[in-house]
């Protein structure tokens, strides 16, 4: 057992650093630094650069377009992209439906959808939660009724992230009303331009339009767009949720977040000293670093340990709980650090508005981000549900 990088790993690390330095778009960097709301195109520009390089899907098997990197190389990759504050890649295609399709899909589905996910041609969204089905996802009521070679889908989904940009959505629908809850669900891929789909915005506490309601009225979906067997969609759903949870640990991004908090606390004054010299504040930063180290090594153990390659198990719930708590504490500490300037509400730059926003740049999104990130302990299976999973699957209670 050791934790040193080999010479090959170090060379790889240098290659990654050089690549990012030479290829990360300066314009995008500027928008991120200013806290501007990012457009669909902004999200895709880095995606396309990585696709061209062949580095867009390190976690995928090589045969479907993966990089063939070792777990250590993948760790280096996520470290370096976070360190350089590269924009987050949208997970809906790459980390969610992509793995479902290459694991459970037909040869035709693989051939059609996987290349388009890799290239960024299709933007995906996730049709899981419903107004009456959140933590109790299996109680979902959206129905798909067979009609010739098609299904007719009716129902309502909610919390659908960035559905306003989506070309395709993957949906959990009920295909057997009489079966036990989990056994009557199927996994459908639906073209978001299909007649009968309506996307309505939900505005969240920071003023963002990030999530949506999606209404489906007599939407016709070819049965060839069902992944895996009819009524076996829950298998895909569970597989996907476990995948989603590992990504949710967000270790590398939290590391970068701690560096940002420290930078703020070195600038903000507390009397005649920087805030970071304040013993109470410093202790909170230290507590976060210690907890993040514990999360990081727990994740590394599950990535590179004896179970490596078997796919995420119930231990991913631990990563989700601890990772989301750390992300929230980071936003809380940032808000605390900016003091009075957490209060001004910065609504983004209006048309022709060249006036500099109120307060330091790093303060503009502190409160909205704190409000928004309350979602992390709710989405992807709330942390209460994750604890139930650990109790049942790990502790055997």
């Amino acid at each position: 057992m050791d934790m040193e990088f080999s010479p090959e790993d170090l060379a790889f690390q240098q290659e990654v650093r050089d690549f990012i330095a030479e290829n990360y778009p300066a314009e995008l960097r500027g928008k991120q630094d200013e806290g501007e709301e990012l457009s669909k195109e902004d999200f895709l520009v880095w995606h396309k650069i990585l696709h061209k390089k062949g580095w867009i899907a390190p976690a995928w098997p090589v045969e479907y377009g993966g990089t063939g990197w070792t777990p250590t190389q993948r760790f280096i990759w996520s470290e370096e992209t976070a360190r350089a504050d590269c924009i987050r890649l949208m997970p809906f295609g790459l980390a969610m439906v992509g793995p479902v399709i290459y694991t459970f899909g037909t040869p035709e589905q693989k051939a059609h959808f996987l290349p388009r996910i890799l290239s960024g041609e299709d933007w995906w969204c996730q049709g899981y939660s419903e107004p009456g089905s959140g933590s109790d996802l299996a109680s979902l009521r959206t129905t798909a009724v067979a009609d010739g070679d098609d299904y007719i889908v009716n129902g309502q989904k909610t919390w659908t992230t960035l559905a306003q940009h989506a070309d395709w959505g993957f949906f959990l629908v009920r295909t057997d009303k009489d079966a036990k809850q989990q056994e009557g669900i199927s996994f459908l891929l639906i073209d978001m331009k299909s007649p009968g789909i309506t996307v309505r915005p939900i505005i969240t506490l920071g003023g963002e339009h990030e999530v949506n309601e999606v209404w489906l009225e007599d939407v016709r979906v070819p049965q060839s767009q069902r992944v895996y067997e009819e009524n076996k969609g829950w298998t895909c759903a569970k597989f996907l949720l476990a995948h989603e949870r590992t990504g949710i640990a967000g270790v590398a991004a939290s590391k970068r977040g701690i560096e940002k908090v420290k930078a703020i606390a070195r600038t903000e004054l507390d009397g005649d000293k920087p805030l970071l010299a304040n013993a109470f504040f410093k202790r909170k930063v230290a507590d976060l670093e210690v907890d993040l180290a514990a999360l990081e090594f727990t994740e590394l153990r599950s990535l590179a340990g004896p179970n490596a390659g078997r796919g995420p198990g119930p231990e991913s719930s631990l990563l989700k709980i601890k990772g989301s708590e750390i992300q929230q504490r980071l936003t809380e500490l940032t808000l605390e650090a900016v003091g009075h300037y957490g209060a001004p509400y910065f609504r983004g730059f209006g048309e022709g508005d060249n006036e500099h926003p109120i307060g330091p740049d790093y303060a503009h999104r502190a409160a909205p981000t704190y409000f928004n990130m309350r979602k992390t302990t709710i989405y992807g299976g709330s942390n209460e549900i994750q604890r139930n999973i650990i109790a049942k699957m790990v502790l055997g209670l």
Partner: protein
Amino acid sequence: MDFTYTETQDMIRDTLARFLSDTYDFETRQKFINSDSGRDPAIWTALAQELGMLGAPFAEEHGGLGGGALENAIVMEELGKVIGIEPYLPTVVIAGGALKAVGGAQADAMIPEIIAGNAIVAFAYAEPQGRYDLANLRTTAKKDGAGYVLNGHKGVVYAAPWATHLLVTARTGGSQRDKDGVSLFLIDANLPGVVRRDYPTVDGSRASEIYFENVAIPGDALLGGEGGALPLIEQIVDEATVAVCAEATGVMQKLHEGTLEYTQQRKQFGVPIAKFQVLQHRMVDMFMEVEQARSMTIMGTLKLGLPAAERMAAVSAVKAKVARGANFVGQNAIQTHGGIGITQELAIGHYFKRATMIESQFGSADHHMDRYERIALAD
């Protein structure tokens, strides 16, 4: 010992609660906080002229109801329950408190204007470099004949876009963090050279950055002694801190009640989620925080008249406890609601936003624990 309210105090609470339930429902509030001016001036006028509420802490000789800090706490708690954005805190509690403390002709002239609803005062004390240190001031007031000339930058001045007057802390002597040399001025908000940048705040109010550019102010704008106003400022900020804790109590109560109600309606796994023990215990913990916040606020209110050191230790204990309680209750109200708690549509998220801003208003929990330790645990 007696913790019951007087009949008059009960009447103030009932009258105000009834008025607010008629005028301040969530949809109405959202409408006016999103309007150009960010408020409905008719509410302030009604509070003054129909309810006499702006006279709650003032002496009857000024036209008030003869109350004090307890009456302020009652009004603030009721405003908290509707996440009211009315500028009662800066106008009545803070400026009113300063005027009561200095008395004399300035109080005689200004207090009736406050009670009548004609004067709105914003408290311009914070500066970008100063954090929660009231003496950390770069704003200066230089003697000039009979008056002063004001220069400097005040940050995040709540209610300033609506204000007729500004209560300003400034240096008439000493260097940036000295305790001596601090003065307090009550000035007309529209004097030449007062430059404002107005903006909305994340908790639904309005505030301004205020730049004083060679503002000529009259000599009688000075409240209290020149250069020796810090103890007075500390006193009125302590009064304001307790008043904000009273507001927090109202906010926290609503967060808790809203959560109880929601969990009894919301069904998952075939039962109301309030049936799950993990949520029951969490709601019990929230309840205990609300009750302790109320207890601490009462303690703080009753101790405002003590000598400075004891008062400061008590107020810091109150604010630290309430700030932590507001954090816990707010975060768990959202968590228990789930996704719906994060939307703009439900009131609960807006209570959470106000609770969050109260946490750091007049000093974070850390700031107040530090002040408490320095006074109460000094060897």
